[in-house]
């Protein structure tokens, strides 16, 4: 089986959401909304870190979230796959809908949510005592698949999609921790892709990487948006401008401005956005 048939999703039970989209390429796909956030507020104890944010994350587009430290953008991102509730004292109000299904609704399994909405973190965090291969399929194996042939296919497909295959294919058994920083981050992306998520969240995925490794991840983001919707938090405004289709600017927990990246970086509507992206922020 080649990698393309896998994308079409005929092999695995958990592959339909992407498969359905991949095949039925409707002309107006760009307008489709994958995630809809309604009046989302997040509290740490009594302090509101995110205040009544509404946002639509478009299908198979890259949405960048920018803003100064402490503006709530990472907190917001973490709410999109219920990662936030792992933080003690944190409380969420409002709705996060994935394909119109409320992720915080009754009966939603947070583990399933995190499979459908994957995440890549600031510092590459491969499982240190696992091989490259085991790292990739660590999450996938939780589905109960044991067939070695199937697992091999997932490993290759995921590593290819994460643009790491060529560099590791000859030694899949070596430790994930032995890779370079940039390779480790791509390994984490491969691990997230292995469970075939609908959305991939990236929380400053390049901040610990050198410019070349950063460029590779950015190139990868361009390729990945063909198959997965991406939301990325970044401190690097040029990166947001380079990789994203839409950009949201957060300040003091509020979504100040949200729109097409090309527009936001040339003619923002709001003065605060203007001040931030031109570097006039204290």
């Amino acid at each position, binding site marked *: 089986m080649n990698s393309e048939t896998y994308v079409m999703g005929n092999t695995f039970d958990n592959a339909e959401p992407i498969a359905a989209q991949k095949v039925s390429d409707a002309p107006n796909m760009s307008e489709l909304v994958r995630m809809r956030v309604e009046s989302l507020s997040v509290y740490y104890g009594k302090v509101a870190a995110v205040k009544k944010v509404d946002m639509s994350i478009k299908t198979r587009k890259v949405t960048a979230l920018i803003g100064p430290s402490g503006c709530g953008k990472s907190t917001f991102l973490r709410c999109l796959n219920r990662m936030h509730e792992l933080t003690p004292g944190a409380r969420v109000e409002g709705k996060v809908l994935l394909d119109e299904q409320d992720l915080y609704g009754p009966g939603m399994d947070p583990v399933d949510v995190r499979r459908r909405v994957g995440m890549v973190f600031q510092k590459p965090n491969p499982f240190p005592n696992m091989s490259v291969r085991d790292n990739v399929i660590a999450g996938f194996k939780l589905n109960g698949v044991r067939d070695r042939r199937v697992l091999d296919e997932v490993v290759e497909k995921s590593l290819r999609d994460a643009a790491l295959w060529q560099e590791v294919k000859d030694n899949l058994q070596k430790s994930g921790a032995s890779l370079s920083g940039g390779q480790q981050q791509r390994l984490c992306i491969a691990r997230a892709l292995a469970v075939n998520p609908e959305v991939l969240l990236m929380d400053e995925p390049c901040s610990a990487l050198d410019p070349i490794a950063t460029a590779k991840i950015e190139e990868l983001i361009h390729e990945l948006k063909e198959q997965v919707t991406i939301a990325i938090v970044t401190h690097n405004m040029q990166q947001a401008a380079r990789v994203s289709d839409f950009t949201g600017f957060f300040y003091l927990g509020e979504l100040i401005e949200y729109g097409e990246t090309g527009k936001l970086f040339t*003619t923002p509507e709001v*003065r*605060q*956005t203007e*001040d931030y*992206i*031109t*570097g*006039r922020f*204290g």
Partner: protein
Amino acid sequence: MPNEHTDKRYDEELKKLREEILYMGGLVEDQIQKAVKSLVDRDSALAEIIIERDHEVNRLDVDIDGICIKLLALHQPAAKDLRLITTGLKITTDLERIGDMAVNICERALELNQEPMLKPYIDIPRMARIAQKMIRESLDAFVREETELALKVCRDDQQVDDLNSQIFRETISFMIADPQTINRAMKISSVSKYLERIADHATNIAEMVIFMVKGKSIRHMKVLPPAV
């Protein structure tokens, strides 16, 4: 919220860009005024000086481009700053072309000063005054970020166009009446055309100022908007 850059050097370089554009604008305005004076006063020595001084305009064109390219490369400007810098690149091109037109006027003046005067110059200085004012006001609009003033410059272009048509008709009638005047009349008509082009460049600058301030383009519109 503060209106200064966190990076002070960036602020200084943007300030320098504005100042250089203004200096170039002032120089170009003076070039036109003196070019027309050399024609009206039949002062060939002045015409030579103005032609020589065009090097200064050309040097500024290259220098300002350099400042803009450096700002783009080193600071990755966005939004308003990006619009200022790209506007700077375009304004200097227009100013440089205006400088060339001043040289062209001087060249025609040198030729016309060799021959008897066809008629006293009345409309040409009027045109020159309006064109000069348009340049000054477009640059004032640039510095003060005043879109209303920029829009006025765009409107004023019509006056220069009308005067150009009038001079064209007048010179044609001279040529019809007496073929001996063709050489001189053609040259006067050229000067009028140069001034008309200068006003067009001033209009370009004003349009770019509106883009710089509002992020909206009013270029190539058949009818000017009443306000932006």
